[in-house]
Structures are given as C-alpha cells and as structure tokens.
C-alpha cells in the first residue's frame, strides 16, 4: 500500500484500502473494501431526524429544530442535559462565530442558526460576543476576534468538489477560494490550517433537512433533486460528519436512480482530509454513528 499522503489511483481503491466512502462514491463494489487497517481514532457523530421539522412551506420549525439540536448535543457528549453539553464546548469568555452558508437555493435555515445561538447563550456566551456570517467572515469583527466557531451548512452535491459540506464551509476564510480548487478541491482540508480558524471549530452541524443529491445546469441546482430527509448531523469531527452525510446522499442516489450513479467529481477531499491532513475520520466503519428520532427512510 502506498503512503497515505501520496498519489492515490483507482487501483488503490480496488486493492481494499480503507477509503470506503470514496469508493462507494465511485460506484466500486463494496466487497472490495475490506477494512484492513486499524485506526487509533474514532469519531462520534449524531444523526437526528424529526418527521415534522419542516412545514408545508418547507420552512424549518424553530421549536422542533431547537429540540433536535439539544437532543443531539446531549447524546454527543453523553450529558444529562443539553446545557451541560454546550458548557462542555463553550464558556462565558468565548467569542463565537457561527459560520453559516447563504447559498441562495439552499441556505442554512434561520431556525438552525437561532438554535445554535440559544445553545451558546445557555453556555454563558454573551450575545455581543456572537456573530453569524458567511461571505463576510474576513471583515466581521467578531470572527476576527473569535476564540471558537460553530460550523453549519446544508449538505449538497457540488459541481467542483463533489459535495459541499462542513469541510468546505470555511472556504470564505480565505480571500482566494480558487486557490483551493486544484484537482477537484482535493486538499480542502488545508482550509482548516488557516490561522484564523485552526483548532477553533468546536462544533459542526450538517443540515440534512432537504439535501441536494444531484446537480444539473450551470448552477448545479434543481429542486427536483432535493428531498425531505428532515435530519441534522452533529459532531466535533467535520470529516466524520461529512462522510456520514455523503453515505446518505449515495444511498438516496441509489434509491432515486435505481442504480449506482457515482457523484461526479468524486468527493475525494473527504478521504484526503483523513489520509493527508489528519483532520478526522472518513471511514464509516470507524465512525460511532448514533441515530436518534424518526427512522423512516433513514438510508443509513
């Protein structure tokens, strides 16, 4: 087997390396991917769903959304109540940026942003020390002084990186986003080494309310390719969070198209986030996935 950080070829995936997430995305047979390597790391991720979180108009219900996030936090940190979980991550001295996403067709819902704010309040973070932003993070005074971040956005397939999830969300922390586009965004995890961001993202919430599982056209969006999954994926490891979201997108694509139809381009940045950049765990077999709430159509 090659060095994890070197050139990876199709043959490496076929040989049974531990890149199951990407292999599945490439439509390669799953039995080829014997889980041979032992990993010292494992990541806990909570998937929570609620049948009624979305109203008829598609808007997220603020109360149900908040309950979902609180439940996920309790489960993630194994605490008696949600407040304790929030206090596990944040404190009254923290200055917190909530990195959201404003992409027109599928933005981070207000209900999610507001629930995160309430969680931060419960940990004692002062309102004046919290800001929500996306494209203005580099000029946002709170973000510039932040001691911590919460990273949240909806999951979607993406024209250039395969998928856009939590790993990609900090792209606005660089003034030159295109400098991370090389080789279909293979090294997006490098974003997480930007000094303003490094080691400060304490929580990732991937919104799976209406994920985009396939893209068409110049803007890569058509509502036909979204569905009401009504879920949130919550974790501290952005790689594990995205890997879990990707597994669900792949399952939905199989269900919708009735065949293996690989996401193009393959979102190899998720694998490289583990193998090259040691940011987290991408292998689903090493992710401690906890499922809460609505089970119908869970796909994972």
């Amino acid at each position: 087997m090659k060095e994890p950080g070197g050139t990876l070829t199709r043959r490496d995936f076929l040989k049974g390396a531990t890149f199951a997430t990407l292999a599945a995305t490439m439509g390669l047979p799953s039995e080829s991917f014997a889980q041979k390597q032992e990993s010292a790391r494992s990541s806990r991720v909570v998937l929570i769903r609620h049948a009624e979180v979305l109203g008829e108009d598609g808007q997220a219900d603020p109360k149900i959304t908040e309950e979902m996030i609180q439940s996920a936090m309790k489960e993630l940190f194994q605490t008696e109540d949600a407040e304790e979980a929030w206090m596990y991550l944040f404190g009254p001295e923290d200055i917190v940026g909530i990195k959201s996403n404003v992409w027109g067709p599928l933005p981070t819902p207000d209900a999610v942003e507001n629930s995160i704010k309430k969680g931060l309040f419960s940990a004692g973070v002062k309102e004046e020390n919290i800001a929500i932003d996306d494209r203005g993070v580099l000029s946002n005074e709170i973000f510039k002084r932040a001691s911590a971040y919460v990273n949240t956005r909806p999951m979607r397939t993406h024209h250039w990186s395969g998928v856009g999830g939590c790993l990609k969300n900090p792209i606005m922390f660089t003034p030159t986003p295109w400098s991370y586009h090389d080789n279909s965004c293979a090294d997006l995890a490098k974003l997480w080494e930007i000094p303003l961001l490094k080691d400060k993202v304490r929580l990732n919430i991937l919104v799976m309310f209406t994920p985009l599982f396939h893209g068409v056209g110049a803007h890569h969006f058509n509502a036909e390719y979204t569905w009401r999954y009504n879920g949130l994926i919550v974790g501290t490891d952005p790689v594990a969070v995205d890997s879990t979201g990707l597994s669900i997108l792949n399952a939905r694509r199989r269900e919708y198209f009735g065949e293996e139809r690989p996401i193009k381009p393959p979102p190899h940045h998720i694998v490289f986030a583990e193998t090259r950049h040691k940011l987290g765990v991408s292998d689903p077999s090493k992710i401690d996935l906890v499922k809460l709430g609505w089970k119908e159509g869970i796909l994972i």
Partner: protein
Amino acid sequence: MKLRLTNIRIIKLVAALLIISIILSCSGESKIEKDEAMIKELFPDEIDGWKPAGDFETYDREGIFTYIDGAGEVYRMYDFREVWVRHYEKEDAPSITVEIFDMGKSEDAYGVFQHASQGGDAGIGQDSEFNGGLLSFWQDRYYVTLLPQKLTEETEPAVLNAGQEISRRIGDTGRLPEIVSYMPEEHRIQSSLKFFHLHTSLNYHYYLASENILNLNENVNAALAVYEPDRAYLVLIAFPSAEEAKVARSSFISAYIPEAREEGFYEIQSDSWTAIERSGRYLVAVFDAGSKQRCLDLINDVKENLMQ
C-alpha cells in the same frame, strides 16, 4: 544639418507610431464593442410575454466565481471567455434566466455541453437537452442555458421557444473536435462521449488518480467514451508531439500499471483489463475491459480511424 535630419526622422517615427497605436487601440475597442453588441443581439427581446428585467450581467474568467458559486472551474477547464446573463419577467409567472457562454471556440462549447450532459436531444442548436426545466444547448462557439424559476405549463413552451429563437439568432454552426471523430461509434454509449483537456475532467468522468499521471494539459485534446457490452472506457489523447505522448505513456505505466512494463496491457482485477498504446502523437488507453482481446479491438478500431 545631419542633426536636423535625424530630428525630423525621429519626429516622423514617433508620429507614425502614434498613429499606429491610435489605429490599434481604436480597432481593439471597436472589436470589443462589436463582440458585446453581437452577444446582446442573441438574446430575445421578449419571450412569450416575458420581458427583460434589469441590465445585462456579464462575468469573465475571473468574475465567474462570483456568479456561479463553486462551478466556475468547470467553464475554466475550457477556453471560456465570458458569460452574458439576462433575466426575463412576466406578471404572476416564474421568471426565466437566460445565460449565453462564449466558449471561445466551438470545440469547447461542445466540450462544456457534453461535460454534464445526460443525453436526450431537445432538437435545438447542435445538441441540446431539456431536463428538470433546464434547457441547455450548444451552437457555434456558444453554450446556452435557459432556466425558469419554476417549470410550469406556461414556462416550458416559453423556454423551448426562446431556445429556438436564440439558436436562430446564432445562425452559424461550429465544428466538433477532430479527436471525437476518431472514437469508434459501434457499441458506444452515445451520452458517454466527452471532450476535454485536463486531468480534472478525466477524473470527473473516470477517476484515475489523484495526480496527473497522463500529463494532460491545456494543449492536449482528449476524448472519452464508454462501450458496451462490458462498459469498457476508451480514452484517446492527442498530444502536440509524439515525444510528449511517449513521456505520458511512460508516466502512466510507471504510476498505474508498472507490472505491464513496455507491453502496456495488464489485468488489474479478474476480467478487468487496462491497456495503453501510443500511435504517433496519440495515446489510446482502455480501462475496465473484459479481456485483453477487447483492449486490442478497441485500440485497433481507433488506429484504423486515425489512419483514415
């Protein structure tokens, strides 16, 4: 006296240079203006009652990122020059957005259209498709998309009519990439045929390696297609020189099938063969073929086409 003559010569030379630069700058400016006017003329004045709303928007190779979040690179993989955008509105109806991409040359308009094409000709332009409300087609050096905010009984015919009108206004047709004509037609899955230059495109259609082991670049033309019954992938690459093709072949063998050595054929899994062969400045690669003979057949088909 000699000095006076030299001065006069210098003055004449400066004057001549000045006149030339004025002529050049004037003609350059008028060409840009002419191009702008020409592209604007391609947009319909009205679409079945939908009227233009606001000014034209335009984005070049750098500005494309601000317009298309994340997908700008797809166009930049080709000779993309600029995109012109116009929104059309009608009371109590979903809006319609028309985008005309100037791809520099017809080959790249074809390439970018085929990039994400799923098949299904809508009969507009040189090739088109109409999926989920989005009409896209290519013609001459243009790639055109029309997207209604929502597909309704009213917007569907409007979008198709507008597409026909834009196609009529473009008028000319462009040539296909020459390399595509060398790809065997028998048993080819038509929608799988792609034209590209860069290894990121190859990885989009067939993930080969994280690095550019075939030395693809902007000066290279490449085509890919899938063939039944074994769904073998055939990739044909035209390098500027035979030497570059030779180096790329060595690079590929060394990185992907070192076991094949100089022969260039290897069974990487049971009943899954990979092969690479050079013919002058061309490289022919076969992936996922059911047998060695299958690789040979596909390669020979290409070579026959190259000789014609």
